[in-house]
């Protein structure tokens, strides 16, 4: 039964070997002539300005997180809409409950001010 | 029949609740002490009525279970709140409530003006309640509840003077040692329950049920194991080798506590327990031998230490350990009734001795206090010549001392001699008997010696107290003296209810009432011993008289030596210690047993704990926490740098755990 998974194992092994092999090979084969310019961080060809370790505003994370939350939940709507007729009234009611719960969350974050930038 | 026995433990419980909850508000010492003593007296009255009813019944109707309600029930297991009323528990009830009452009365005077007076009486009542549960419980679990309860009260009362570090430490030591013993008790309980249940389908922990099926226990084997477990429990509670070192330290508690808990009642619980389970012990010859040897060894060993102590209470403490050794010796040679008899007489004279020493300390303390002296009021080297200052205390103390020394006619003589004779003549241990008897007899001589040394150093000779204090030494009030008189009286006459057969016959056929009374409890063991083929005890009147004479002579020799050393030529002891310095040091320092235990057990345990704590926790976990606490500046740096590392560590330990477990399943 495990034999059915052999191709997957092979895939994993080969991909690991390929990745590692490329790294190891390039470090052996490639010439190393470091210079100041070469060691600079790459910034689309321009001269780098300031440190690369900029801190992002936490607000980005919050917005991104909320986006993903609602995004993922919206995904549930797709299979439901395809089977909407087959599911009948019960399906409609269930989705109503689902949306209502989402709505509670939405009202909560809205009132909390999580959607305001300032 | 005995429907009202539940009142006996109820009264002290009420006393505990009243004093514990409202004692602080009552404030009035007389009311608090009065309630405490009255409650125990009520119990004593009910116990006496129970005893009289018991005596009026014929021998075979003297065992009763009085069930109040079902306590725990699950499947096959059942434990009730129920009391076992039989001759053995009757005797114990009388000792606990009777001596307990006297000590309560004494405490009213002794604890006068102490901070937390109400606390003391609340604990004392709670103790009495727990002790009564222990004695009356009709099953092992209820007995265990009492067993734990007395341990707790003992701990609380030893640490009563909690501002003294030594008192707190002594309490802790007592508790820990008792826990070791309790562990044995529980193991015994589990093993017995499991064995009887799985092997014979008898799931019970009730004493009468267990005794009813006594035929089913095999000789030796599992019974040896479980009786040894129970005996481990007994050594903890009753301060026998190897778990005895807590008792001398327990003298940090107030003197009435030493008298009640650490002499008369709680420490005898182990003896009582073996008596209660005699049908099991008799089937385990190896255990009996262990009990006898430990008992004899403790009796001798503690007596040697007692000879070199200068603290009046410590002498009595080692004496208690030694006398408990006698009781275990009696149990170990199958003389159960004699052991219980000695338990009772010992309760009388040792309580009297402790209370008397308390009166002396009390008086010394006040006298020294007046003169602003910092001498130790318990050190006998500061005493002397108190005979004329405290005549009643002296008289009662002397009577009790004569009783413990084993002078014919006094209580201690009858009980101790019975034990020594049984040690010599019992059918169980063969050639070992002589050694057992020898240990007991030598210990008896040492007992006579150190007890009279105590009397001579305290009451006779010149008064060595600071001269400024001399005039402040005086006799104690009546409330203290009265219990002393009653106990001294009992120490004198208490022995006559259990006279050895040969003396009774000599006096015109007086039977051993005590043994007769207890006979139903030990019936099975008696029958069992008789049924054994080799069980022919050598009975020889001449021998018995002879041995009795020998032990009397030994006692007299002990007293004479004490007289010579401490009255006739008081310079001799100093010369003696000078001649054998190492021996004296070893005895004075209690043979260095405490140090040995520290080295063998306490320190390795501490080291292990330390290692786990330091290696496991301080380095890995606490580093971070301490860092947070110590430096506000370092917080963010520490958290930023160390946080991920430490979570890594945790995750690593989990991953390692998983790997080890899976590896186990793959390669097993």
């Amino acid at each position: 039964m495990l034999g059915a998974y052999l191709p997957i194992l092979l895939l994993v092994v080969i991909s690991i070997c390929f990745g590692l092999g490329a790294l190891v090979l390039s470090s052996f084969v490639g010439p190393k002539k470091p210079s100041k310019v070469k060691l600079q961080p790459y910034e689309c060809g321009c001269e780098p300005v300031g440190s690369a370790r900029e801190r992002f505003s936490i607000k980005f994370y919050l917005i991104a997180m909320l986006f993903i939350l609602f995004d993922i939940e919206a995904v549930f709507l797709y299979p439901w809409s395809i089977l909407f007729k087959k599911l009948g009234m019960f399906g409609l009611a269930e989705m109503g409950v689902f949306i209502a719960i989402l709505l509670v969350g939405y009202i909560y974050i809205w009132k909390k001010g999580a959607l305001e930038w300032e | 029949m005995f429907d009202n026995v539940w009142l006996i433990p109820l009264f002290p419980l009420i006393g505990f609740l009243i004093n514990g909850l409202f004692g602080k508000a009552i404030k009035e010492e007389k009311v608090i002490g009065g309630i405490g003593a009255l409650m125990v007296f009520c119990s004593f009255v009910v116990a006496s009525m129970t005893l009289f009813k018991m005596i009026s019944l014929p021998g075979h109707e003297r065992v009763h279970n009085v069930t109040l309600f079902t306590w725990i029930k699950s499947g096959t297991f059942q434990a009730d709140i129920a009391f076992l009323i039989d001759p053995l528990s009757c005797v114990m009830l009388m000792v606990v409530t009777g001596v307990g009452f006297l000590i309560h009365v004494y405490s009213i005077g002794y604890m006068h003006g102490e901070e937390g007076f109400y606390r003391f009486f609340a604990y004392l009542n709670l103790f009495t309640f727990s002790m009564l549960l222990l004695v009356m419980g009709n099953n092992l679990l209820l007995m265990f509840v009492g067993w734990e309860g007395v341990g707790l009260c003992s701990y609380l009362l030893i640490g009563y003077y909690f501002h003294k570090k030594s008192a707190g430490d002594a309490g802790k030591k007592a508790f820990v040692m008792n826990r070791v013993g309790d562990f044995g008790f529980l193991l015994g309980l589990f093993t017995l329950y499991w064995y009887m249940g799985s092997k014979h389908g008898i799931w019970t922990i009730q004493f009468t049920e267990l005794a009813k099926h006594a035929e089913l226990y095999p000789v030796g084997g599992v019974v040896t194991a479980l009786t040894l477990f129970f005996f481990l429990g007994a050594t903890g509670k009753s301060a026998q080798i190897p778990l005895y070192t807590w008792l001398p330290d327990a003298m940090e508690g107030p003197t009435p506590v030493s008298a009640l808990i650490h002499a008369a009642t709680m420490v005898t619980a182990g003896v009582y327990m073996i008596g209660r389970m005699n049908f099991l012990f008799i089937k385990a010859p190896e255990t009996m031998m262990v009990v006898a040897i430990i008992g004899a060894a403790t009796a001798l060993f503690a007596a040697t230490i007692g000879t070199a102590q200068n603290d009046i209470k410590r002498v009595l403490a080692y004496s208690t350990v030694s006398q408990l050794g006698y009781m275990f010796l009696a149990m170990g040679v199958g003389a159960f009734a004699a052991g219980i008899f000695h338990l009772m007489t010992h309760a009388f004279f040792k309580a009297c001795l402790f209370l008397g020493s308390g009166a002396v300390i009390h008086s010394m303390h006040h006298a020294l206090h007046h003169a602003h002296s910092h001498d130790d009021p318990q050190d006998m080297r500061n005493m002397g010549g108190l005979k004329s200052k405290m005549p009643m205390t002296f008289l009662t103390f002397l009577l009790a001392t004569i009783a413990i020394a084993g002078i014919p006619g006094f209580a201690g003589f009858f009980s101790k001699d019975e034990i020594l004779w049984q040690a010599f003549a019992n059918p169980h241990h063969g050639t070992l008997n002589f050694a057992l008897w020898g240990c007991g007899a030598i210990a008896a001589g040492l007992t006579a010696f150190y007890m009279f040394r105590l009397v001579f150093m305290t009451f006779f000779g010149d008064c060595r107290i600071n001269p400024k204090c001399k005039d402040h030494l005086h006799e104690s009030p009546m409330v203290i003296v009265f219990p002393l008189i009653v106990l001294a009286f009992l120490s004198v006459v208490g022995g006559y209810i259990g006279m050895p057969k040969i003396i009774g016959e000599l006096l015109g056929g007086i039977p051993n009432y005590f043994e007769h009374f207890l006979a139903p409890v030990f019936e099975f063991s008696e029958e069992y011993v008789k049924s054994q083929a080799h069980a022919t005890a050598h009975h020889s009147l001449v021998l018995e008289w002879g041995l009795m004479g020998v032990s009397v002579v030994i006692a007299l020799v002990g007293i004479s030596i004490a007289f010579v050393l401490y009255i006739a030529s008081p310079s001799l002891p100093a010369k003696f210690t000078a001649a054998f310095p190492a021996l004296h040091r070893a005895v004075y320092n209690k043979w260095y047993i405490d140090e040995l235990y520290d080295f063998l057990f306490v320190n390795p345990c501490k080291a292990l704990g330390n290692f786990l704590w330091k290696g496991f926790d301080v380095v890995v976990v606490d580093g971070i926490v301490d860092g947070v606490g110590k430096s506000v500046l370092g917080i963010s740096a520490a958290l930023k740098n160390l946080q991920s590392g430490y979570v890594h560590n945790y995750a690593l330990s989990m991953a390692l755990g998983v790997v080890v477990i899976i590896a186990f399943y793959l390669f097993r």
Partner: protein
Amino acid sequence: METIAMPAINFAAIMPETILSVIAMALLLINVFVPSEQKAYLGYLSLIGIVVTFFTVIGGWGTPQEGFNGSVMQDNFALFFKGIFLVSAALSILISDQYMKREECNHGELYPLILLATCGMMLMASGTDLMTIFLGLELLSVSLYVLAGFQRDSLKSNEAGLKYFLLGAFSTGFLLYGMALIYGATGTTRIAAIASYVAQNSLAGSNLMLLIGMVLMAVGFSFKIAAAPFHMWTPDVYEGAPTPMTAFMSVGPKAAGFAAFVRVFVIALPTLRADWADLLWVLAVLTMTVGNITALYQKNIKRMLAYSSIAHAGYVLVGFVAGNAVGTAGIMFYMLSYAFMNIGAFAIIVLVGKKGEPNNNVEDYAGFGFKHPLLAVCMSIFLFSLAGIPPAAGFIGKFYLFSGAIQAGYIWLAIIGVLNSAASVYYYLRVMVFMYMKDPVEEFDWLKVSPAIALCLIIAVAGVLIPGIVPGYLLELAQKAVLL
């Protein structure tokens, strides 16, 4: 057009969960609409919700309800555990208000989060499908991560929340992988179906995938109940989290972990019993010993109770290993009494603490017994019960766990358990030594007992003493709830 046949849905099977989650959502909304000074209502409302739920739990007793096509089953076993969860949630809420006000972090989200966590626990207890159990576990865990880090401006609390989250996610991975392997081996996630598949195809003993799945699930649950060596998160998280939440975390989720652990292993994998009993034996011994020995040297009382709670998980594992009626009833009895005694002890810690909790060390209890005798007596009762000294409920519980082990023939396990509980007395007693045998350093004049905490203490003391003295009734309930 033909409609899809709906599976059998039985709302009665998830009645308590439904009520709690509706109330939680309502509270969430109320929280954002009412001004902050009226937030005390939230606590009362949540308590009312819990009481109502408790009545539905009592009402459901004796009538098992299966629902959602067999993925939840509200039987007596689940109901008993739901009772434990509700008790621990209610007691924790009672001590939260005063603490949160003192620490100035009185955010209204606390109550909905507690209710949602309780809801998750309930799903774990009644789930009969690995997916349902996982769903409950995640609902519980996510709520707890937030609760642990609830004091946003306290570094320790943040540390606790983050650590708990990281390690919790790690352990969830194991659990889920274990479930996946079991699914791979048997082709189903219904625990009853797993059992019948394993029995029909006699996979036990031969199938490695099943075995490793079992091990990984055991690891995942062991993390939740804080069994060694998966306990490392406990002390840090318990110490850092707000004290009422520590109380909550040390009881409810642990009970929930045991509920799911027992149900999955006893119902789905009875044929592998010999294998997992060995594993749990070792875990139990390790857990008890590590917990107790490390607790011996703790100075911080919250940390000490954290290690003690590890040790208690070990005792309960003993009953699990025993696997018989007595042992399993012991688990339930013990978890319920543990809820009372542990939360009670934490209530005292809340009372004694000052803002920022600079005084959580055992030494800070010096002389407490003289300044506040009644509170000290309560604390002593809780400590006695934790130490397993009669007549407290903890003693009866331990007695049952160990006698279950003995009846099942695990003598050595019981011996190690008894030894451990003897050792544990030392550190519980140390607190009492400080309370009663040291001179007071502090006046404890900041200490005020709010009516809510007083109520909590009364309930906890009654919950420790009454089952301790007359355990019969509760034991009977526990025995009726046993899953055998």
